[in-house]
C-alpha cells in the first residue's frame, strides 16, 4: 500500500517535471537576433541568427561560413567533426552558438545549424 502510494507520487512528479521542463525550455529558448544588432556586449553569450549563405570556406579543422541577412553579414565558424556539413551557397540557415571576437570582428562558433 505504502509502496503503491510512493510510486504514484513519484510518477506524478516525474510527469509534471518533464512537462514543466518542456515548457521551461521553450520559454528560455534563445530569441532570434538580427546580425546587425550583434555587438561586443554579446561576446561569450549564446546568440541565434538567421540568414543566407554567401560563401563557404574550408580550412584544416573548420569551415567558415559567410552568413548574410538584411541587416549585415557575419562569419560562422563550424569545427570539423562536430556535424556533417551539407550546406550550399544561397541556402537559408539558422545558426545558434557562442559569440566570439576574432581579429576585431564578431563571429559565431556554431553549436546548432538548422536549415530554413
Amino acid at each position, binding site marked *: 500500500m505504502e509502496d503503491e502510494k510512493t510510486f504514484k507520487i513519484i510518477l506524478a512528479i516525474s510527469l509534471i517535471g518533464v512537462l514543466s521542463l518542456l515548457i521551461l*525550455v521553450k520559454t528560455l529558448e534563445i530569441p532570434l537576433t538580427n546580425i546587425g544588432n550583434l555587438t561586443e556586449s554579446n561576446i561569450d553569450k549564446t546568440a541565434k541568427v538567421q540568414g543566407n549563405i554567401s560563401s563557404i570556406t574550408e580550412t584544416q579543422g573548420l569551415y567558415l561560413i559567410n552568413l548574410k541577412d538584411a541587416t549585415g553579414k557575419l562569419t560562422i565558424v563550424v569545427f570539423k567533426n562536430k556535424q556533417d556539413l551539407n550546406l550550399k551557397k544561397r541556402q537559408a540557415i539558422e545558426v545558434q552558438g557562442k559569440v566570439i571576437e576574432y581579429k576585431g570582428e564578431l563571429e559565431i562558433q556554431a553549436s546548432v545549424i538548422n536549415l530554413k
Partner: protein
Amino acid sequence: MIVEITLAILVGCFLGIISGLTPGIHINLISVTILAASPFLLQYTSPIVLILAIIAMSITHTFLDFLPSCFLGAPDPETVLTVLPGHRLLQEGKGYEAVRLSTVGSISGLILVIILAPILIFLTRNYYDSIKIAIPYLLIICAAFLILRESNSKLWALILFLLSGVLGIATLNSTVSQPLFPLFSGLFGISTLIVSLKDNNTIPLQTITKPIIKFRQMVKALSSGFLASIFCGTLPGLGVAQASILATTVSKKWTPQTFLILNGAVNTMVMFTSVITLYTIGKARSGEIVIMQKLIAEITFQTFIMIVITAITAGIIATMLALKIAKIFSRLITKISYKKLCISIILLITALVALLTGLQGLFILIVSTFVGMLPPLVGIGRNHLMGSLIVPVLLFFLL
C-alpha cells in the same frame, strides 16, 4: 614529453579511482571539469597530454566502477546490470571473487579489442558510410528488442523509454552548457543512491577467494561481448548495459560468474571501441569522447598509438588497483556507514550540478532523479532510461 605523458597516465589513473569508486560520480563529470580547466592547464601542457589523462581515467574507471556496484549496491549506467550477480556473490561472502571476475573480463576485453583494432579500423572506415543510412532503423530495432526482452512489464519498459526520451529532448534543447551531466546524474546516479538507501542490507564477513575461471566461460563472454561492443561502441545512443543485454542473447545459460566477466569485458571494450570510432570517422559516442573531441580537432595515427599505449598501461595499473582495493573493501565493508556515504555523495553531486550548470541544471537533476527512481519501483531494468539519448538521436536522424 615522456615525463608529461607518464604524469598524465598516473593522474588519469588517480582520477579514474575517484570516479570509479565514488557512486554517482561519472567520468563525464571529471572530463567536463578538465575541459573547464583546460584554458589554465594548456598554459603548461598540450591537448594530447590532457587526452591521454582522460583515456587513462576512462580505462581505470571501467575496471573500478564495479566495486561500488558490488559492495555498495550503487552502480553507474555501465554496471547497472551487475548489481544482482555482484550482490549475490557478496551475500555469499565472495565480494572479492566478484571483483576478480569483472577485472579479468576488463583486462581480457582490453587486450582483445586492441589486438583486433586494425580490423575494427578497416571495417569502420570502409563500411560506416554504408550502414550510416541504416542507423536510425538499427536503433529502433535494438530499442524494440530490449523492450521486448524485458521479463517483467514490457509496457512499463516502453513507457519509461519514451518518458526518458522526452526528458532527453527537453534537456538537450535547454541552454545548459553540459546537459548530459545533470541528466545522467539524476537518472542513474542520485536516483540509485536514494533507492539503495531504503535497503538496509547487512553484509556478511567477506573472504578472499580466487574464482576458478573455465576457458569456455572466457571464450563465451569475450566473443559475444566483443560483437555487442562493436555494435554499441559505433552506434550513437547505445552503451554498456545495452551491449551486455545483446551479448546475453547468444546463449540462454549465463551464470553470475560468466555474466560478471562479460560485463567487465564489455565495459572496457565499449569504451575503447568509441575511441576507435572517434579515430576512424570522427564521431563521438560517449561523454568523455565528446570532451576529447573538443580538446583536439583530429586524432592522428601517432596520437592513436599513444592512446593504445596509455590504455594498456592504465589497464595494467587498474588491474592491480582493482584487486588491491577489493581486498581493502572486503575488510572494511562491515564498518562503513553506508547511509552517511550516500548522503554525502548526493550533496556533492547536487552542489557540482548547481555550480556547473546553474538553476536550470538543478531542475533537470531533480526531474531526472524522480524519473530514475521509477524503473526499480515497477520492477524493470534501468537500461530503458537510455531512451533519454536514443530518442533524441533517432529524431536527429529521422527529421
